[in-house]
């Protein structure tokens, strides 16, 4: 086949990129080579639009053992142990086939973790969907949740937390971001490198089929009505195979017989071979005819580009081959030698001996194109940032707003979801989903890790720079609430088409904001993932940079949960209320608006607040802590009561606000850096002293107790609901969408 414009278009390779390929090879590529270039130079694998921006993020710190560039990042958690973690998106596949797309997303991120020699011990997920009123959205939602459950449960890794958001913009572009964390001995972390001429290259795991060919390029293209034709064979996950691979690989890694190991994720065999070679400064030579195949008549092109799941590539130390083979045999897996490490830094692919591709590995990795795409402030911003409350008419009563907000899926209990996730397997989970940041203990140490993934995309839409900072602050505040000192972060940057300058501007601003916030909070980013082209028919998603933060709890017995603990405890608000309704859930739910400016964030104050939380937890002062997020103070106070038998009576000061919106802003405004904590009455002074020493406002606002949720503003009672009634609304709002409507017999 001659390579013409049609062929290039089908591969998503631009004319300029093709010129570079010609120069790098000094000849025309074969079709197999073009395929290899196209997947490695795709947005998904090369980060060509995002790389220049990502370089600005802080990635180092005293605890960082592995920054970006490997399969996952790693931070030191003491006792010679490392927390290895990363987040990955599987948005496009989950839109095409929700169950399998989400399942294979879980499978992929788990491989990234055990590839580093870490035993995965926790999963979280961050999801976005269109409104649940839409039956197709419900089907996607159900499928995604079942897929995450189906894979995570059977492999036996608990899903300990997550978040879910809803907005029209995700209807045709759901987001499925999965975070995984594992524990490794710090000195046993293994990397994805190939080195040592003559060392054998092994393939192990599932056989290769035609699934997902061009998955990486697809993940880098938007959807339109023609996508149907581009549909690759959908990848089907096999968690059973992955469980065997996980155990076998951890055994093999412990045996010290490996030089390097990498999973075959996006761009499959192609990506794993050239990345391992490039990292090790070596060449690699494989023969595709030796690759175990599930289907007949597969071409070298197909074998190299297949994205069949549950496959690993290993480089084995010379002389240790049979030992490695034996370990895999125990798990009924056959490790197959498909090539060896060579000198010369080239990736050579043969088919029954014939050379079918011969490319310098660095041409596919370090020297892949990098774009500094044009950025332009979007036109929508100036208008969207304007908010006139007066124009909205008179607000509804606080109790009506309260009930409406509790019933919105964004705020409502996510029990319907996490009940389907095994969140207890491995018996490490100290804080279950729904109780705040997920917390897992690290057996054999007295420590625990608090984990949270967060992003308020409305804030990012209204001001990408500030919104990204708020996402960093929220995720790390959530782990601090549990008593965790934030020590490392990972991000998943979900945006629309980067070739639109206004999207690229959103991206650039968000990365800048994220970097600034991470620096201020001393939070290195050790890895992450970028998902671009999240748009359908030209309609993009809200910019959604999701942050995953890991917090270290030195004493696992001092973990703090969301809910009030005892009758008579004092309720204290850390932080201050401001007149801030911009981007709030209130505006979205009550007025259908995403408008205004997101809440202001003072990073120094945020850092101080988080220090108070961590210290207050370590001292055993704080009995419960819950961050004020969507729905503001009123919803936060209610959530402190839900799942307990304890109501609360509180009174807060009014914030001065435009017209009749005073109460609304006080109760439902989403000002940043606020946490509701409860403290034993006799230790209140101690906490207040701790807070004021750190310059954090701490205001006693009431008492835990009774069977009602009562809130007053400066002596005026504005909300007074029976706890059980409010809880019923909140706990059934998602279930309601899925109850079978039985036909009348």
């Amino acid at each position, binding site marked *: 086949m001659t390579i013409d414009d049609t062929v290039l278009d089908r591969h998503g390779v631009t004319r300029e990129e093709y010129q570079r390929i010609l120069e790098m090879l000094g000849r025309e590529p074969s079709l197999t080579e073009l395929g290899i270039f196209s997947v490695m130079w795709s947005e998904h694998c090369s980060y060509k639009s995002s790389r220049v921006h990502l370089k600005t993020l802080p990635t180092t710190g005293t605890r960082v053992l592995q920054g970006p560039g490997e399969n996952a990042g790693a931070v030191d958690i003491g006792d010679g142990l490392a927390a290895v973690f990363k987040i990955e998106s599987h948005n496009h596949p989950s839109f095409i086939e929700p169950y399998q797309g989400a399942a294979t997303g879980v499978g992929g991120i788990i491989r990234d973790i055990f590839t580093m020699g870490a035993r995965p011990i926790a999963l979280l997920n961050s999801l976005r969907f269109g409104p649940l009123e839409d039956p197709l959205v419900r089907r996607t939602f159900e499928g995604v949740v079942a897929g995450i459950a189906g894979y995570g*449960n059977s492999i036996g890794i608990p899903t300990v937390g997550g978040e879910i958001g809803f907005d029209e913009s995700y209807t045709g572009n759901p987001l499925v971001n999965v975070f995984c964390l594992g524990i490794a001995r710090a000195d046993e972390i293994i990397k994805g490198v190939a080195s040592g001429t003559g060392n054998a290259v092994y393939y192990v795991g599932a056989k290769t089929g035609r699934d997902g060919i061009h998955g990486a390029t697809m993940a880098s293209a938007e959807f339109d009505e023609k996508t149907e034709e581009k549909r690759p064979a959908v990848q089907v996950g096999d968690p059973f195979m992955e469980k*065997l691979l996980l155990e076998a690989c951890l055994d093999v890694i412990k045996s010290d017989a490996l030089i390097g190991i990498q999973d075959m994720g996006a761009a499959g065999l192609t990506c794993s071979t050239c990345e391992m070679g490039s990292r090790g400064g070596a060449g690699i030579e494989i023969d595709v005819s030796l690759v175990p195949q599930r289907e007949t008549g597969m071409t070298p092109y197909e074998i190299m580009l297949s994205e069949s799941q549950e496959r690993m590539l290993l480089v084995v130390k010379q002389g240790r081959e049979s030992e490695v083979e034996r370990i895999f045999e125990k798990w009924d897996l056959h490790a197959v030698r498909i090539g060896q490490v060579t000198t010369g830094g080239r990736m050579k692919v043969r088919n029954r001996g014939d050379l079918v591709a011969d490319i310098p590995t660095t041409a596919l990795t370090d020297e892949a194109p990098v774009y500094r795409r044009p950025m332009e402030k979007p036109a929508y911003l100036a208008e969207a940032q304007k908010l006139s409350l007066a124009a909205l008419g008179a607000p509804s009563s606080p109790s009506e707003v309260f009930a409406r907000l509790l019933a919105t899926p964004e705020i409502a209990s996510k029990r319907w979801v996490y*009940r*389907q996730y095994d969140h*207890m*397997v491995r018996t490490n989970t100290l804080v279950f989903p729904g109780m705040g940041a997920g917390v897992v203990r690290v057996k054999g140490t007295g420590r625990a890790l608090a984990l949270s993934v967060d992003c308020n995309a409305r804030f990012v839409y209204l001001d990408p720079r500030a919104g990204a900072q708020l996402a960093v602050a929220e995720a790390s505040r959530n782990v601090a609430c549990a008593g965790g000192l934030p020590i490392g972060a990972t991000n998943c940057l979900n945006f629309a088409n980067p070739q639109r300058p206004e999207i690229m501007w959103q991206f650039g601003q968000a990365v800048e904001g994220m970097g600034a916030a991470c620096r201020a909070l001393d939070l290195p980013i050790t890895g992450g993932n970028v998902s671009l082209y999240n748009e359908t028919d030209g309609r993009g998603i809200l910019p959604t940079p999701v942050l995953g933060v890991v917090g270290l709890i030195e004493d696992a*017995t001092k973990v703090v949960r969301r809910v009030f603990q005892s009758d008579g405890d004092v309720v204290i608000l850390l932080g201050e209320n401001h007149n801030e309704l911009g981007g709030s859930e209130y505006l979205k739910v009550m007025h259908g608006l995403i408008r205004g400016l997101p809440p202001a964030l003072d990073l120094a104050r945020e850092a101080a607040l988080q220090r108070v939380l961590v210290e207050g937890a370590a001292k055993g002062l704080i009995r419960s802590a819950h961050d004020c997020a969507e729905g503001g103070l009123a919803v936060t106070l209610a959530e402190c009561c839900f799942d307990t038998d304890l109501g609360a009576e509180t009174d807060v000061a009014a914030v001065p606000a435009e017209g009749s919106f005073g109460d609304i802003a006080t109760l439902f405004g989403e000002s940043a850096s606020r946490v509701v904590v409860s403290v034993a009455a006799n230790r209140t002074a101690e906490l207040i002293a701790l807070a004021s020493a750190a310059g954090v406002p701490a205001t006693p606002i009431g008492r835990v107790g009774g069977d009602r949720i009562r809130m007053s503003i400066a002596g005026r009672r504005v909300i007074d609901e029976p706890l059980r009634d409010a809880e019923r609304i909140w706990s059934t709002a998602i279930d309601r969408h899925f109850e079978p409507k039985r036909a009348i017999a």
Partner: protein
Amino acid sequence: MKFAVVVFPGSNCDHDAYYAAKHVLGQDAEFVWHKDSSLGGADVVILPGGFAHGDYLRTGAIARFSPVMRAVKAFAESGGPVLGICNGFQVLLEAGLLPGAMLRNRSVKFQCEHVHIRVEQTDTPFTAACRPGQVLRIPIAHGEGNYYAEPDVIERLEKNRQVVFRYVTAAGAVKPEANPNGSASNIAGLCNERRNVVGLMPHPERACELAVGSADGLVLFESVLKAVTQGAFLGAEASPKATVTAR
């Protein structure tokens, strides 16, 4: 005392059972690979939870053919205490060591949550330390825990007092709303006629420390420790060592 924790390919609560036996109860424990034919002299055998062979086809359907199952059968026949937890229970059903079968949960969904179960019988090695009627708060985590047997089989189970655990309300009442999966007669666990083989869907090994939400499950482990050390409730012949090796 020594526990053998059988590991099938796809078992994933093997470490949890091992941890409960060894680190919480403080007894000896060893993993036994499903291809092994010996139980290595253990006093108690646990078939742990998980997804043996992916739970593809049917839960426990393929695992029952594992070589180790011959040893488990022989051990059970000689009166040795065998506990099947969740997937392990499903394997015992498929292997015919306990009667009945599992259907999908009534909700057709996987469910992970704490439930309450009532101890119906205290003359089994795994309930010997329980109070009669004791209510335990223990988690479930399964998609197929909807126990089924023909009505005459259920009748026989009841008559022989083989229903060991039942789903109940926190107050201990057998109510439909306390039944998480639709199982017949709210059955959460049962034993064989000889009473030495017990299977249950809830996970006692996940409820052995307050830190992880409940310590109510520990009593099952304490029970078997008591039973083995006192030689009680182990079927006809007392305290056989798991030296039986399948041919």
